[in-house]
């Protein structure tokens, strides 16, 4: 367990055993077996209301495989101490585990060096870190560009920054089928010489749209802007290579990628991170502190004030290792397959309207929709999710932390089903059947 040595993806064979229930030979591709994967997730054996749990809320938070929980347990039971400040054996073990986790995360996302990986408490904190530190250089009249499809956590930090600095907040609109409207943006000169920051989602948490990040990054860099990406819905589902992506800063969270809650990641190009001022002040982020002033540690520790989420980092590294062992390309392909199957079933339901792309092209595994009774009366998402929950089906209802996007589409709220590596066709069948039942339940009122 060295920080920078070791093979590209260590211990894949062990994890392949866990993932597929069979020993995989090094050169043989691991066959994607959804039933074997499900066996790694004990919670999926639960029943709800007498029916098997159908968990279709992974875009909200994913379930955890046994290996992740066991990695956290092992850390707490056998290696626990504070990092980087305890001079004893356990302190050394905890520090090594924490820094080794950072290196594994760096490899998982294709970072050039592990110092480019900053651990935060979640993606929201990572995005706030970006807004706060990049904001130090903003002047009144500078422009920040986001999009109308953002999660609130990629809207509010920039609104706060604009208020603090006098910068102007502008945004990409979306087309009727839920893609970023790049033509309109070009026509109105959205990105221009005043643009200092562009921050957009890689994959929309509502529409599922996969945005053309490299293209947006190129446009941003052409005017000298810093490009921030909210990859919270992308890293769990797509093979992400940050070095090739073209962005400058990439934020994501642990709990949506089969990892624990309480940890997020900010990746940044090292030279950029090294040029940014500190975010939170405290222990571990300093070099020398005097009563008159302080100097600060280099990245990543400059941005990690206080005791970091140590056990969570260990758990997140186990999650990254688990996903790598199965293969992000295979997970992506499964996600596309399940999403295409769900979209097909949903398109066949009269009264169901999909928000966003209705085909599984450049699209992630979250499908939001509105539902009406056969005579055209809208059924509120709360009522939809309650009826589905009575059949053991877990979905999300509301505006999914994206109120402006719902307003843009003229709906107050929506229901969202989201899929992951453990989702089966049978679960999609249960969803479609449950939606039919919901329509008839509220339809008989009329």
């Amino acid at each position, binding site marked *: 367990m060295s920080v920078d040595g070791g093979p590209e993806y260590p211990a894949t064979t062990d994890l392949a055993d866990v993932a597929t229930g069979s020993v995989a030979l090094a050169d043989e591709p691991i066959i994607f077996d959804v039933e074997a994967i499900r066996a790694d997730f004990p919670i999926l054996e639960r029943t709800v209301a007498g029916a098997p749990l159908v968990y279709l809320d992974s875009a909200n938070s994913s379930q955890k495989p046994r290996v992740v929980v066991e990695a956290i347990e092992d850390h707490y039971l056998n290696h626990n101490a504070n990092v980087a400040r305890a001079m004893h054996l356990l302190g050394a073990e905890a520090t090594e585990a924490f820094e080794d986790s950072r290196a594994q995360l760096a490899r998982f996302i294709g970072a050039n060096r592990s110092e480019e990986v900053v651990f935060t408490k979640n993606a929201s904190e990572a995005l706030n870190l970006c807004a706060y530190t990049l904001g130090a250089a903003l002047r009144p009249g500078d422009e920040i560009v986001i999009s109308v499809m953002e999660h609130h956590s990629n809207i509010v930090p920039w609104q706060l920054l604009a208020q603090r600095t006098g910068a102007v907040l502008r945004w990409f609109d979306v087309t009727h089928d839920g893609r970023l409207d790049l033509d309109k943006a070009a026509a109105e000169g959205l990105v221009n010489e005043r643009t200092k920051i562009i921050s957009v989602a890689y994959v929309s948490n509502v529409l599922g749209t996969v945005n053309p990040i490299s293209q947006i990054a190129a446009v941003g860099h052409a005017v000298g802007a810093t490009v921030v990406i909210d990859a919270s819905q992308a890293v769990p589902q797509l093979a992400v290579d940050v070095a090739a992506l073209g962005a400058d800063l990439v934020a994501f969270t642990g709990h949506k990628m089969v990892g624990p809650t309480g940890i997020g990641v900010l990746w940044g190009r090292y030279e950029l991170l090294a040029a940014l001022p500190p975010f939170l002040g405290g222990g571990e982020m300093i070099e020398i502190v005097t009563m008159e002033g302080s100097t600060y540690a280099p990245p990543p520790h400059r941005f990690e004030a206080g005791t970091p989420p140590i056990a969570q980092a260990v758990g997140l590294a186990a999650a990254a290792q688990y996903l790598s062992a199965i293969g992000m390309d295979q997970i992506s392909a499964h996600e596309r397959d399940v999403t295409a199957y769900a979209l097909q079933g949903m398109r066949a339901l009269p009264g169901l309207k999909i928000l966003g792309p209705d085909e599984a092209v450049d699209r992630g595994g979250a499908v939001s929709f509105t539902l009406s009774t056969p005579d055209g009366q809208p059924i509120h998402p709360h009522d939809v999710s309650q009826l589905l929950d009575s059949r053991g089906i877990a979905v999300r209802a509301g505006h999914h932390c994206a*109120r402006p996007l719902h307003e843009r589409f003229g709906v107050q709220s929506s229901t969202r089903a989201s899929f992951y590596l453990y989702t089966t066709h049978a679960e999609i069948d249960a969803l479609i059947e449950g939606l039919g039942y919901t329509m008839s339940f509220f339809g008989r009122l009329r």
Partner: protein
Amino acid sequence: MKVEDLYQEIILDHYRTKHHSGLREPYDAEVLHVNPTCGDEVRLRVHLDGNKVSDVSYEALGCSISQASASVMADLVIGRDVAYDLGLYEEFLTMMQSKGQIEPDEERLEDGIAFAGVAKFPARVKCALIGWSAFRDAVIRAQSERS
């Protein structure tokens, strides 16, 4: 806990035909209450005549529970004394916070007792309360503006 405990016929009836719905003049106070987790909204107006609630009118965007609850609430509070209505609010609130442990008084809460089942679904308690808390807020504002 069955879903039928939640969606009782009385609730579904009120949802289908909402009583006293729509915004009306005259009024002494108007409030907007929202549930930030789901985006449900109730805009509600209260008109007082001395110590009597002479009208409650509202526009509600939301689920069946929140809309039906606003409808039942308007039925109960219109034409009664402010003090009596605020007492009803407290009684309804207590019932909703009881997790289904309290036997409600049908003489006073009438159709409102149908929401005792909703109290067993913690995620939906807010839905049942949004209209009632908007009413209470509007009454307090109307009184303070008068004094």
